[in-house]
C-alpha cells in the first residue's frame, strides 16, 4: 500500500465513507463550482471615491505611504521626487509591464531605469498592482515577466502603482477577478497580497519596519476611481 493509499484509507475509515457516495461528491463539486461568498464586511462597500479614501487610510494605518497622480504620465516625476526625498540614488528597477514601460520616464531625466528581476542589489523598484482591496489597504500583485516577484521583496523601497479603478471593495471581488483572468482552477505561480512594509515584532514585541522585505512601501494611485 502506498503512502497515498494509506492516508486515504485511514481518512475514509475515520469518516465512515467510501469516497464514492454520489451526494458527497455532488456537495464538493457544487462548493468548488459555486464558491459561495461568506460574510463580507460592510466596511468596504462604498461608492468609488469613498472607497479610494478608505483604501488610503488603511494603507497609512499599515505604515505605508500613498499619493495620487492625476494621470500615469505623472508617475516618473513622483518616483524621482520620492527617491530624492529619501536621499537615495536616482535608480529604479521595473519589469515588462506595458503600463510601466509606456511611462514617459524621460520626464525625470536624472532617473536611471533598470529592467527585469532583482538580484538583491537594488535599492528601489516599481511594480504595477493588478488590484487593491480597500477593506484592508492591501495591494495584489501577480508574478510573471510584467512584475517579477523578486521586485516585491528584495529592494529597500517598493513603489507600487495602482489604477484607481482597480481598487476593489473586498477580497471576494479580487478572487473573482483572478478566476476571470487566469481561468477557473488556474493561478499564476505567485499572487502577493501586500499590506504595508515588511516588519517584525519578534524582539520584545517592539514593532520594527524592514525585517527582510522593503522598509518602505509607497503607493501611487493613478487616475480617478
Amino acid at each position: 500500500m502506498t503512502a497515498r493509499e494509506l492516508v486515504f484509507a485511514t481518512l475514509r475509515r475515520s469518516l465512515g465513507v467510501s469516497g464514492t457516495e454520489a451526494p458527497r461528491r455532488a456537495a464538493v463539486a457544487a462548493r468548488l463550482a459555486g464558491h459561495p461568498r461568506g460574510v463580507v464586511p460592510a466596511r468596504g462597500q462604498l461608492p468609488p471615491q469613498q472607497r479610494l479614501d478608505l483604501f488610503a487610510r488603511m494603507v497609512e494605518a499599515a505604515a505605508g505611504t500613498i499619493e495620487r497622480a492625476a494621470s500615469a504620465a505623472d508617475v516618473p516625476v513622483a518616483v524621482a521626487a520620492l527617491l530624492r526625498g529619501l536621499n537615495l540614488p536616482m535608480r529604479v528597477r521595473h519589469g515588462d509591464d506595458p503600463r510601466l514601460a509606456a511611462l514617459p520616464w524621460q520626464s525625470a531625466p536624472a532617473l536611471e531605469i533598470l529592467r527585469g528581476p532583482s538580484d538583491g542589489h537594488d535599492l528601489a523598484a516599481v511594480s504595477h498592482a493588478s488590484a487593491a482591496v480597500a477593506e484592508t489597504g492591501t495591494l495584489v500583485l501577480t508574478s510573471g515577466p510584467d512584475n517579477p516577484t523578486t521586485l516585491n521583496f528584495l529592494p529597500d523601497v517598493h513603489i507600487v502603482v495602482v489604477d484607481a479603478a482597480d481598487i476593489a471593495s473586498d477580497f471576494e471581488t479580487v478572487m473573482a477577478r483572478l478566476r476571470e483572468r487566469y481561468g477557473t482552477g488556474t493561478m499564476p505561480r505567485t499572487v502577493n497580497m501586500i499590506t504595508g512594509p515588511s516588519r517584525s515584532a519578534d524582539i520584545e514585541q517592539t514593532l520594527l519596519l524592514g525585517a527582510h522585505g522593503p522598509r518602505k512601501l509607497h503607493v501611487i494611485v493613478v487616475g480617478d476611481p
Partner: protein
Amino acid sequence: MTLASHIATSPRFKDNAKAALADPDLQNALKFVEVNFIARRREVAERLPEFEALRDSARDIKDHTLAYLDLYLEAYEERLTAQGGRLHYAVSADDARRIILDICRDAGARTVTKGKSMVAEEIGLNDFLEGNGVTPVETDLGEYIIQLRHELPSHIIAPAVHLTKAQVEDDFRRVHTHLAPDRNLAEPTSLLAEARGVLREKFLAADVGITGANFLVAETGTSVIVTNEGNGDLTQTLPKVHIVLASLEKLVPTLEDLAQLLRVLARSATGQEMSVYTTLSTGPRRADDPDGPGAYHVVLLDNGRSSMIGGEFRDMLRCIRCGACMNHCPVYHAVGGHAYGWVYPGPMGAVLTPSLIGIDKAGHLPNASTFCGRCEDVCPVRIPLPRMMRSWREREFERHLSPATVRGGLAAWAFFAKRPRLYGLAAAMAARVLHWAGAARGRFSWLPLASGWTRYRDFPAPQGETFQSRWKHRNDRPRPGSPP
C-alpha cells in the same frame, strides 16, 4: 546538543513550570504577552462589526472541509499536479523527513533556507537535515534567534517571545563573530539590521527553500503563507526548489473560503487587520517567469490526523494556529511555552500534544488549566478547548495514568457524591469541625491531606454551616414583602 532540545519534556511539566516561575528573564519577557496581544486583538476585533459572524463562518468552513476532506484532497491534488507541482504523502514524521531529504539531495543542496513552520518543528526537521549534511537556516527573526540557541519555539507565532533583547544581543555576539565589540546592539533595530544583513546572504546562496502553509486551497491547488517579515517569500522565491511542508487539515475549499479565514487569522494572532504578506503559490515558475523556483513540491503530513478526524478531538483539526488561546491563557502567562515541553504550547498544545505524542507523556498538559474559558472565548474557529482538556483528563483517569493520591481522593469524593444524604452529613460535620478548629485565626496555614493548597496559601476556615443548610434556612424564613 541539538537533538536534546527536541525530546519532549512534557512529562516533567511540573518541574518545568517551577523553573519557569523562578526565571527572572523569562518572567520579564512574558509580561509583554499579556499586555500587548490581548489589547491589540480586542481593538481590531471591535473595529470590525462582522468579526463574530466571521468566526462562525470560519468554524463552519473548517467543519465542512473536514467532513469532506478525502474529496477536497483529491481536488487539491488534481489542480496542483495539473499546474506542475508534485504532491508527496507522508504518513509519519519519519516519512516526511526522508521525502524532504531526498528532494534536497536530488537538488544537490548544501544549505536550505526555511520559513517558519510549526509542522517542521513537529517532525524535528532541522536536526535531521543537519545530521544528514544539509544545513538548515531559519529566516524568521524569532526562529533564527532560537536556532542560535538550539531551542524550541515557545510560542507558535512569536517563537522567541520568551527572550529579552539583552539575551538576543548576547546570542548575536556569541555567534556573529564578525561583530566588533564596540558595535552598539542595545536596541532591537540594530539587532534586526544585523540579522537582515546576515540572512540576506543566506537567502541568495540557498539551494532549496522550505516553507510551511497556513492554508491549502483545493479549488486551485494553491498553498498560502501569511507572514510579516517577507522571509517566507524570499525563502520560496530565490532558490531553485520550493518545498511546502503542510499537514492534512490545512485544506480549505475555495478562494472565497480563504478570504473568510484570512479575516480572522491576523486579527486573532497579532491584532493586525491583515498580516503584511499573504502569498498564494501554485506550482513552479512558468515558462516565461523571470524568477521563482523551477520545482514546487508539497509534502503533506498525516502523522495521526487521519485517525484523529474520526474521534472526539476532531474539532482540534479546525485550528488555524493563530496563538490567541495562549495569548489569553493565565497559565501560559505564568510559565511560558517551554514548560509545556514540546512543540505546541498553551491550550491548543494541551489538547493537540496528547494526540500526537500520547497522553502517557503529555498528561500534565490538559491538567495545566484553570478552565477559565478565555481560550474558547477568543478562538477564531471556536474550538471547545476546555471541554477537550476535560476529555483528556477523563482518559488519563480511565487509563490509570493519574497518581494514586489523586485517584484515592477522587474515589473517596465519588463515594460521597453518589450518596447525597451521606454527603450532606459529612460536609456539615467537616464544616463544624473546621469552624471549631480554625475559630481562633479564621484560617489554616496547614491542613492534613490539603498540603497542596496550604503550601502556597491559607485555607479559610468555614463559618460552621454548609451552603445547602444555609440555603434551606433562608428559604424556610418568610421573605420580606411576601404575604404572611
